[in-house]
């Protein structure tokens, strides 16, 4: 059994004695209340921002290189600069629709420290002259919705949000809004569609990104919860201090969730670009090793959409550039660790099934392709696979994401890394994401696929397993 060194009131969060930029309030049981927040410096970052001009605040964010923490890792300060001048009103949409398999950090940030998030939203609204902020929380997160509603009501009562904030000319409303169960709504243009009251289907981009044409056709900044949660600390401490943490290319910290077959799974605040996967998996302050008696087989380094890594990649730092060159991405900071007992085909199928279920249906290669992928994988797992099925899987994958798909190097087979990102025949990356588990496992564990497929030859036709039966049940 894993040891438990969790903060009891914040299940999943593990305090690892590292720098705390976004989890500083987590050790307090009542961290989400206005009383605790104010007693620990909440809204001081807002006050610091209001003492400067909006342009100076924007410059500070640009200077600090606050990378987006939602998945793409694009610098927030640069994204903010893409809004066309003078085309008012501008809007802020906060992406709290966290649904990527393996990911949860935004949920903890929303549940444990809603005031930090609200303060971050206000700093962004002040810097950019935004007319209104929409805080979009995933539908399934009832507690996060409740905590944010309470925090907003308290913040309005105290004059931190609304009209003439803290006695200044700065006025902005924050509207709490929430979804209803659709992974694709985490994609920023789908999020905007959802917020306009529509089905959450992504919009074609380029040419127009939300910063140019977004909510109601107006310039709109879509930022992730964790990205905005960094801003209060940044305003209090400055870009120079922020950059003393992490690496030059990826300053600051980020939250990662390590789940699966490790001794102490948890959500850890780590220094970007410094901490390695080995530190995370085996370090005493982190996961304390693979579960007892087992060894690492493979891991997903950045959410269900990331190509998989293997033991050869554990010494990479959690640095976007390095991980991208090595064939995957850090994405949403979700790391899923699998030991040698894991059936590669079964694990791949589970993620592929997710994409098949969550495809919005707008683009044909994804709508049809993800379903085909799931069916073919299912029949291989059921012992019904055909010899041509591996090639068929790769062919379907190539229709969604043409060309060599990003993959880790495999020295034993003499295969080099194919760098991230993949190409796509679809509007958004959901379809191409479904390819990651397939190419990652076929390339590395083709023998597992073949063993399941050829096994069928040895089974008399009359004893062929029925759909739904698993390999284990035949063994």
């Amino acid at each position, binding site marked *: 059994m894993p040891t438990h060194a969790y903060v009891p009131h914040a299940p999943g969060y593990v305090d690892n004695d590292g720098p705390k930029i976004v989890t500083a309030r987590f050790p307090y049981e009542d961290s989400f209340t206005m009383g605790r927040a104010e007693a620990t410096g909440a809204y001081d970052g807002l006050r610091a921002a209001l003492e400067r001009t909006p*342009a100076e605040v924007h410059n500070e964010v640009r200077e600090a290189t606050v990378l987006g923490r939602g998945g793409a890792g694009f610098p927030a300060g640069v994204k903010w600069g893409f809004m066309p001048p003078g085309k008012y009103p501008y809007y802020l949409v906060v992406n709290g629709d966290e649904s990527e398999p393996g990911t949860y950090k935004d949920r903890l940030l929303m549940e444990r420290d809603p005031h930090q998030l609200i303060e971050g939203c206000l700093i962004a609204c002040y810097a950019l002259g935004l007319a209104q902020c929409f805080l979009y929380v995933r539908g399934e997160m009832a507690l996060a919705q409740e905590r944010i509603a309470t925090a907003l009501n308290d913040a*309005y009562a105290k004059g931190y949000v609304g009209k003439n904030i803290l006695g200044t000319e700065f006025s902005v409303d924050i509207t709490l*809004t*929430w979804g*209803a169960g659709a992974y694709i709504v985490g994609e920023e243009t789908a999020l905007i569609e959802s917020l306009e*009251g529509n089905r959450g289907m992504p919009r074609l981009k380029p040419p127009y990104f939300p910063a140019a044409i977004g909510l109601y056709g107006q310039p709109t900044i879509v930022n992730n919860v964790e990205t905005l949660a960094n801003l209060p600390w940044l305003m209090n401490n400055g870009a120079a201090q922020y950059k003393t943490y992490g690496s030059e290319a990826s300053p600051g910290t980020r939250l990662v*969730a390590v789940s699966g077959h490790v001794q102490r799974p948890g959500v850890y605040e780590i220094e970007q670009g410094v901490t390695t996967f080995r530190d995370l998996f085996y370090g005493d302050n982190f996961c304390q090793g693979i579960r007892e008696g087992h060894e690492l087989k493979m891991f997903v380094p950045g959410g269900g959409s990331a190509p998989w890594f293997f033991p050869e990649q554990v010494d990479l730092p959690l640095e976007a550039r390095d991980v991208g060159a090595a064939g995957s991405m850090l994405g949403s900071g979700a790391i899923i660790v699998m030991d040698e007992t894991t059936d590669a085909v079964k694990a791949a199928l589970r*993620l592929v099934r*997710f994409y098949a279920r969550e495809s919005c249906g707008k683009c044909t290669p994804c709508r049809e392709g993800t379903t085909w992928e799931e069916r073919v994988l299912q029949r291989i797992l059921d012992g019904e696979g055909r010899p041509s099925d591996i090639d068929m899987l790769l062919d379907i994958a190539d229709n969604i994401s043409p060309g060599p798909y990003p993959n880790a190097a495999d020295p034993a087979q003499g295969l080099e890394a194919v760098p991230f990102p993949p190409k796509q025949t679809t509007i958004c990356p959901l379809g191409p994401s479904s390819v990651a588990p397939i190419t990652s496992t076929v390339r590395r564990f083709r023998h597992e696929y073949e063993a399941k497929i050829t096994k069928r030859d040895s089974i008399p036709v009359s004893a062929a397993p029925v759909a739904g039966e698993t390999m284990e049940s035949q063994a």
Partner: protein
Amino acid sequence: MARFSDANLAIANEIISRYPRPKSALIPLLHLAQEQDGWVTDDAMRHIAELTGTTPAEVKGTGSFYEMFKFHPVGKYMVNVCTNLSCQLLGGEELLEHAEATLGVKAGGTTADGMFTIEDVECIAACTEAPCLQVNYRYKLRVSNDDFDQLIDDLRHGRTGIPEHGTLATVRQSIPAEAGAGIVPPEEAREAPVWLARNEVEATDGGGDA
């Protein structure tokens, strides 16, 4: 089969007032309908269409895209067991099988007494605490079979405090009229926000130094 009650109509109008365009309130209003009746009825969708200036078809068109909206009666408690990869690795599928065997229905089904609906759901963002589930979107973490049996017993006897299906947050946002900055349609917000003028003042001052 109900339209919004008077109390919920007032809440619905307050929700609408927090968006620049009424249609943006569509998803929160569908949740409110589900909170009122346990599922989304045709009459509720007609009422939402009236309130948001849309058609019932548009309301259903949007609503049917989203997993959480149910257009038929479901159990008092939705028991959503996660089987995505992190949970699968640590027994999520076995937990779902146990749930199905215990309650006597397959995922997607509702028990004959209308108490429970089981769902086989995608990642619910508690991956380090696998296997996990939600009951009406409230978490239960590291759930063993025994934990599950106890949970069902507690739910049957009303010992959990979990509200009936449809209720999400038990606290609603409320912006007092005098405290709000003013939410208006984009057409009425074409002017630059007043505080941005600070940049111009600064630029003028800075220009003198340069």
